[in-house]
């Protein structure tokens, strides 16, 4: 194994990387490459989706069951744990590639279903289960009657640039990445362009920051490039903290070398010889994958001193963050790497001029950087040809919430949100009525039914009162209470505020308290007028926090409230005036009553009530004391006779 690894390494270094301009290979070379890409394997290959989403669905057990199956049956086959292909809700995914046949993919393969699948497929038969799709290939035989992955509802409308190989390739194999053309782009860039020329090209390609702000990437690099300094830094921001965002994690878990190559390209443009990846410690798998990837690319001489004799140095360090949302803010992130408390500071000076350890520093997000290898390979013009007038390329979205299919999708800029929600993700879950989608996490806003046809790009989302953000899409249906959603985000934000500037620290907490007063049982002395005044003040407070906060976290903190207030004011009003939650989510506003005729006086509910709000005894019908009831619903769940109802 080791010798083949070494011979592969020599082959890839000498033939592929050193001759990075070479595009056609001899038949023999092509065969070696194909075998490294696992395309010409003499024995079956089993791919198991073992990203965090897969593992959450039981992929570890699937892997073990598969290993055991192969051992028991004495079958020679290779198991590859791949990252997420995007269909998180179908995990664990198990693909089988038989020699000479197309790779075929099965969904929901928990450990108990492994035998059924493998018994059939390894014997060249199809099991009687729903089959996701088969992969398209040039030379292998197709399975009859099975649709191709690129025809699948979920995948067909996608354009995959960042996610190109995610879920397809072995994430712990640099060989496969190189055999698929990886790192050649980087080597060609450092030979073909001066750093400033690269910045120019990237600026022309129209790539903009995918972390939320959308600042033109090439332009940003130029600031650091043109600031003289003995040391410059690149920081990859992998501190993905928005609730409902998991794109960066999936990219790193599934295709870590794409990120490393992107970083190497960016560092060259900036003139940085050192880089940090700031990644949250809650992503252990992604960290593990990165550690392996950094070690492998160092072994290959793609990281380190005088890379491939080109006189370029590049070193990457991992820095684990403790999971503070605010550390996604550039200056707070820099403080955190420096070992200080993660608190933002005013700008100027901008990090591009004085950043990490006082040196020019560029911070790019994982997705931004992961776009670069493909941009370099296919050309800056190619990238500029995708998307809309002011937003080029694609955008990865993380779909979650009350939607039929959850997972990762990558679509060209300009795609409508309707297309993502309905065509790709299959609409709201369980045929319920779609209500809104929260885009951009806690900093973003809601897109309602009437705005679903806006085309996704930076400007139009802002015009619709939302923002691109990092790309979380949380779908909400008719059962979602929008006041409750606003409260959820406000709670998140006020907890994650660093506590430095007054409007964010004190203001978000007051906003949360107002929302809590609206959604909880009216306390004595607080009448409707008071609550109504609260809502009026909510808007004013929100505006002041937006206008006056120090950093992006505070400046966008009121967005979920302002956005829901704009689109769902009626729900707020119902909470205040009717004291009712239309979606029946806010427990504090529920009133339960016991139907005396149906009550069997079994005391089941009485025993469950946490506030002893139910009085009664055996054979004495029970009664709920409204003042004591907190609306938790424990009695409702406990009653077997349907005697308790919500009014």
């Amino acid at each position: 194994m080791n010798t083949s690894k070494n011979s592969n390494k020599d082959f890839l270094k000498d033939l592929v990387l050193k001759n990075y301009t070479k595009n056609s290979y001899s038949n023999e070379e092509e065969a070696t490459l194909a075998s490294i890409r696992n395309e010409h394997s003499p024995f079956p290959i089993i791919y198991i989706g073992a990203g965090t989403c897969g593992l959450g669905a039981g992929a570890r057990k699937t892997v073990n069951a598969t290993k055991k199956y192969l051992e028991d049956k004495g079958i020679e086959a290779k198991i590859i744990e791949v990252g997420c292909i995007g269909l998180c809700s179908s995990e664990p995914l198990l693909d089988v590639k038989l020699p000479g046949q197309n790779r075929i993919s099965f969904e929901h393969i928990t450990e108990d279903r492994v035998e059924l699948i493998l018994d059939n497929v390894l014997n060249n038969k199809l099991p009687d289960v729903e089959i996701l799709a088969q992969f398209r290939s040039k030379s292998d035989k197709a399975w009859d009657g099975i649709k191709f992955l690129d025809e699948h509802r979920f995948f067909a409308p996608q354009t995959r640039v960042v996610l190109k190989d995610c879920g397809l390739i072995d994430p712990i194999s640099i060989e496969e990445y190189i055999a698929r053309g990886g790192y050649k782009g980087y080597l060609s860039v450092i030979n073909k362009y001066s750093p400033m020329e690269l910045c120019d090209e990237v600026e022309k390609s129209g790539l903009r920051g995918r972390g939320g702000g959308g600042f033109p990437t090439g332009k940003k690099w130029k600031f650091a490039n043109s600031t003289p300094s003995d040391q410059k830094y690149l920081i990859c921001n992998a501190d993905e903290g928005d609730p409902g965002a998991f794109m960066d994690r999936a990219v790193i878990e599934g295709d870590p070398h794409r990120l490393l190559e992107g970083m190497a390209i960016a560092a060259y443009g900036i003139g940085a010889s050192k880089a940090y990846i700031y990644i949250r410690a809650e992503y252990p798998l992604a960290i593990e994958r990165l550690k392996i990837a950094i070690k492998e690319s160092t072994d290959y001489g793609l990281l380190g001193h005088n890379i491939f004799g080109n006189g370029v140095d590049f070193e990457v360090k991992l820095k684990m963050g403790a999971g503070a949302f605010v550390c996604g803010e550039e200056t707070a992130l820099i403080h955190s790497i420096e070992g200080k408390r993660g608190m933002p500071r005013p700008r100027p000076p901008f990090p591009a001029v004085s950043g990490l350890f006082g040196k020019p520093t560029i911070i790019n997000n994982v997705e931004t950087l992961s776009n670069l290898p493909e941009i370099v390979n296919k050309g800056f013009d190619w990238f500029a040809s995708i998307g809309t007038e002011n937003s080029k390329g694609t955008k990865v979205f993380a779909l979650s919430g009350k939607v039929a299919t959850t997972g990762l999708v990558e679509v060209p800029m300009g795609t409508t949100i309707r297309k993502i929600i309905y065509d790709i993700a299959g609409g709201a879950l369980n045929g319920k009525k779609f209500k809104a989608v929260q885009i951009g996490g806690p900093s973003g806003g809601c897109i309602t039914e009437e705005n679903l046809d806006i085309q996704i790009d930076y400007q139009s989302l802002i015009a619709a009162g939302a923002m691109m953000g990092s790309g979380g899409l949380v779908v909400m249906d008719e059962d979602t209470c929008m006041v409750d959603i606003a409260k959820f985000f406000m709670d998140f934000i006020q907890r994650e505020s660093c506590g430095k500037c007054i409007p964010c620290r004190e203001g978000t907490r007051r906003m949360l308290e107002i929302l809590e007063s609206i959604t909880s049982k009216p306390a004595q002395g607080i009448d409707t007028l008071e609550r109504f005044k609260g809502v009026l003040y909510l808007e004013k407070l929100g505006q002041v926090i937006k206008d006056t906060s120090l950093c992006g976290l505070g400046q966008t903190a009121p967005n979920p409230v302002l956005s829901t207030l704009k689109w769902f004011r009626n729900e707020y009003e119902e909470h205040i005036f009717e004291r009712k939650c239309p979606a029946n989510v806010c427990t504090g506003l529920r009133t339960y009553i016991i139907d005396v005729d149906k009550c069997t006086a079994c005391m089941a509910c009485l025993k469950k009530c946490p506030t002893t709000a139910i009085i009664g005894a055996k054979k004495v019908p029970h009664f709920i004391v409204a003042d004591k009831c907190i609306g938790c619903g424990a009695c409702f769940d406990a009653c077997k006779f349907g005697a308790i109802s919500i009014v």
Partner: protein
Amino acid sequence: MNINIKVNNKTIEVKKGELILDALNKNGIKIPTLCHIKDSFPSGACRMCLVENVKTGKLITSCSNYVEDGMEILTHSRKVIESRKVIIELLLSNHPDDCLYCVRNGNCELQNLAKELDVRERRVKGNKNNNFIDSSNPSIVRDPAKCILCGRCVQRCEVVMGVSAIDFVNRGSKTIVAPAYNKGLNTSSCVNCGQCIMVCPTGALTEKSHFNGLKSALDDPTKTVIVQYAPSITVSIAKEFGLQAGRDLNGVINAALRKIGFDKVFDTSFSADLTIMEESAELIDRVVNGGKLPMITSCCPSWVKYAEEFANDFIPNISSCKSPQQMMGAIIKSYYAEKVGLDPKDIYSVSIMPCTAKKFEAQRDEMTNKGISDVDAVLTTRELIELIKLYGIDIDNIEPELTDSPLGARSSAGKIFGASGGVMEAALRTAYFKLTGTELINFKIHSVRGSEAIKEARIKIGDLEVGVAVVNGLANAKLLLDEIRNGRSDLHFIEIMACPNGCINGGGQPIGSETLAVAARTKALYDIDDKESLKVSHKNPEIKELYDDYLEKPLGHKSHELLHTTYNKRKVFL
């Protein structure tokens, strides 16, 4: 180069590259600030200095943005005023509404801003943080409930003092400024200097009051209450009574203290002279007999604690002399008690200091004699001012009086102890005499005066060239100590004072004093030195008497027992 900007629709000329805040202040426009510290990196925490950028419509902080050519700014537009007001209201919503009971009532930046911004109703309501008062420290009381998290104390402690005893703890609305692990301040590296109190805009940081013990002692007929006041005190209170900053109220203070009920009034400048006698003898001894050099002063209890924690390799360098406060305390309860026939137990010894660390120093184990403390209570300048007001003394209409004898006479060398460089100058005057037998021709040693962080001089004393350095601000002390650690060896004597500018700007002084007021006080001390004829400690007749009658000679047996002390390595965190 100058550029033009438009402020409130009026064009003004400003310096290119200037902070908007500075430019506005120079043009007579007041902008409120809470977290701003002049000439340090902007914090951007309080958002009070927001102004409206007309072109972008955005609010920008004037403390962190620079003027640009053609810029248009509104400093008091409706949007700006309303935003500032909401910010203050937000602060107040999490503030204990107890101004009437607060030590900073009438001298509180938050209170002033609430008034200026016309806050007249509680528009923002909500839960308040449940924080406890930390009175664990002998000098400083923290009340996090009143803290508005401006961060000025954190900056002071870290940048000026190099101590970093406090920092931000927790996140979001639970954030507080606290020592590590949110433990009591007594377990921290705090050196008790009180500079945090000096920059605190509210009553979140205050000195630990010794009022109660003092009032009981004043009312107790069996107690003889004796007071001493530090050299800085007499020039530091005038402004608080509406008089010109820096005016010397020596005689008035003597009279006021007697009216309050103190039985004897002494001047710590006397024991400053005593310190000089001992310290200069120690310096000469070290130089002549090859002792540890450079010798470093021990007058400043914050510096001493700092050294015990962070620079314990320098403990052998620190003079073994007690500070003037402690020397006076020790002499009162020994020599003086014997002389007037009092049992030391019946003496209640009070000192009035521009310093909070003196409260800490007075309760150190080393500062007791047979179980009796040298000093029983320490008041700050601020407490003295309160005391004068409490006892209804009208200082405008009070006849000046002299201090009591025999511990009241002083030289002007003892008086200049209050300024950074004063101890050095006084010590050199006496050391010169002791080594050469003649007095200095010019007593003024200008090179050790002034407010620079580190001042150095080389003084010829006979055949010996003495290298001296004077440092104020503990962070600066570290710089000099590092030089010595790295092999610098040309210094014989170093004066270190923790507070910037020395005791005259100590942590017990009136809060909110401008730089000018501090400068006026310093000048007042040197003016006294100029005017008076007794310029050297060794000629103080009462000092001579003390040695003749009791102590015999500097560094003698009695001196060692009463006037010298020891230092011990301390853990930074307990």
